[in-house]
């Protein structure tokens, strides 16, 4: 585990996020739903504005100055993002709409060309729907088998049967951090086991990349997916990283302009990677915006991000236990070092929707529902939880506001 700097005071960052000036129901906004989507610093918003106001042009083929600037900005963003996650080369990063499309790209281009009836894909029971449904679709179409790594009652993976599950498997799909439990998965040993069994490893980094230092090569991933909007970047952009040889061996996914070197009446020749997988006019502004988000996170430092969140999570776990005792049940690991800053909870018998509604009235935004992880919710035995999640712009005052609002909810429904 990455060593955590002792101190990381990020208070000064709040000023970078214009939305935090919002007044919600005459209260200051306390945004605790970053696991769903993060707020955007001015630097990210302005990077996209600059593109639209100063050099908006289509990329790759234009000869004129603006087109070259746009191309350089987009490819520069790709290179920066690649470096941020420890990729060996920029061309290993494919831009997608979001993490979900990235998993689907793997299921279509790699899965359909590689897997056939009887092949097994191993997933964990705490995967997000994004890393389940594409495989269900492939299972229905191709007759592949899906096997499940169970989740223990402490909310961690139970890998006691791993070797049996991996026997004959072609792919292991695993989240690096649960969006419900916060559980951080130590991917490397799983990846080693998978590779030893002859399976490739797809890691869902949608929750980990925003909050932890990432090194796709060190963790042993073959495919790695994440979304821009959860890491201070814009909507409409995500990334699939994969090793170059894998990408080069895969057939294309979507067909159209930019992903070809030739099109004839009787067929086409695909382009080299990464463009082979980027059909049509790309999300240019969004790629540039994600590059700016990475630049922002690099300036803060991912170690500092992590240290800040560990401290805040620790504070929250202790303070909430203190104020609510047994009435508040928090799911997932109790050690802040073993988890991200995502707190899913139940408060007495109050339904998550009602909690979230009362909290909203106090300006506090939390999520209520199944968090796109229904199989996990069934295992936890709850139809819905409320979930508070923290990021760089949150502080102890926000956690206090959460606790105060939860007390209000208890009073209201008491």
């Amino acid at each position, binding site marked *: 585990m990455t060593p955590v700097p002792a101190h990381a005071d990020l208070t000064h960052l709040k000023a970078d996020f214009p939305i935090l000036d919002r007044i919600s129901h005459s209260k200051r906004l306390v945004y605790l739903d970053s696991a769903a989507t993060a707020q955007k610093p001015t630097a990210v918003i302005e990077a996209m504005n600059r593109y639209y106001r100063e050099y908006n042009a289509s990329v790759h083929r234009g000869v004129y100055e603006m087109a070259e600037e746009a191309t350089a900005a987009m490819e520069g963003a790709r290179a920066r993002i690649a470096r941020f996650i420890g990729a060996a080369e920029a061309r290993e990063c494919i831009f997608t709409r979001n993490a979900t499309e990235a998993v689907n790209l793997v299921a279509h281009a790699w899965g359909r060309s590689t897997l056939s009836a009887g092949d097994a894909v191993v997933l964990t029971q705490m995967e997000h729907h994004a890393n389940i449904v594409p495989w269900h679709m492939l299972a229905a179409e191709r007759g592949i088998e899906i096997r499940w790594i169970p989740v223990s009652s402490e909310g961690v993976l139970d890998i006691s049967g791993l070797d049996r599950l991996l026997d004959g498997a072609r792919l292991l799909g695993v989240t690096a951090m649960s969006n419900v439990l916060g559980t951080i998965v130590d991917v490397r040993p799983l990846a080693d086991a998978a590779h030893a069994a002859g399976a490739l490893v797809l890691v869902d980094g949608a929750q980990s990349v925003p909050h932890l230092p990432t090194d796709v090569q060190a963790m042993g991933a073959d495919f790695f997916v994440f979304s821009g909007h959860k890491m201070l970047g814009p909507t409409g952009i995500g990334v699939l990283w994969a090793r170059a040889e894998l990408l080069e061996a895969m057939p294309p996914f979507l067909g159209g302009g930019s992903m070809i070197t030739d099109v004839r009446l009787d067929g086409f020749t695909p382009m080299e990677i990464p463009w082979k997988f980027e059909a049509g006019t790309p999300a240019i502004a969004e790629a540039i915006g994600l590059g700016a988000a990475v630049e922002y996170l690099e300036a803060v430092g991912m170690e500092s991000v992590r240290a800040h969140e560990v401290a805040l999570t620790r504070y929250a776990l202790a303070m909430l236990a203190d104020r609510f005792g047994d009435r508040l049940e928090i799911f997932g690991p109790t050690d802040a070092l073993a988890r991200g800053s995502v707190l899913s909870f139940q408060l007495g018998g109050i339904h998550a*929707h009602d909690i979230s509604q009362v909290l909203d009235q106090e300006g506090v935004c939390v999520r209520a529902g199944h968090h796109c992880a229904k199989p996990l919710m069934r295992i936890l035995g709850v*139809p819905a939880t409320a979930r508070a999640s923290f990021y760089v712009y949150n502080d102890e005052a926000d956690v206090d506001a959460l606790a105060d609002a939860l007390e209000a909810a208890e009073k209201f429904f008491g």
Partner: protein
Amino acid sequence: MSGLEDLYREIILDHYRAPRNRGELPVPPAHKTEGFNPLCGDEVVLYVELDDDGAVRDIRTAGHGCSISQASTSMMSAAVKGKSRAEVDTTIRAFKALMSIHEARLVPEGSSGDSDTDEGSAAEVNLGDLEALQGVVKFPVRIKCATLAWNTLQQALAP
């Protein structure tokens, strides 16, 4: 923007805390129908016993969910119990019209609304306590909580 009092009227909290007609009925003569809101996991179970002429002789409810879906289920059961089929149909239509006001605002002109609603006739119906649920329309995600019991009732009454 509206306050919590608009959503959680006293009468709603009352039905939530002390739901009417909770329980089961023997099947048969009653029918059992389940309703499910996949978005939030709320579940409504209705036991409905009809007269030969379609009147709701008795009704009981089970399931779990948020205060709005629970209160709406309770209020629905009270509103239809002992009522003729025609009265029940009118009440369903009126209630759905009440709930569709917001949807009409969300989906601008030119795209079709809910074909189930009939605002003309609905306006004349006195919904009594049920009017308290009108505040829900200002909280669009909660509309499905309020309508769950009613959609389940419609299913229960479908031929």
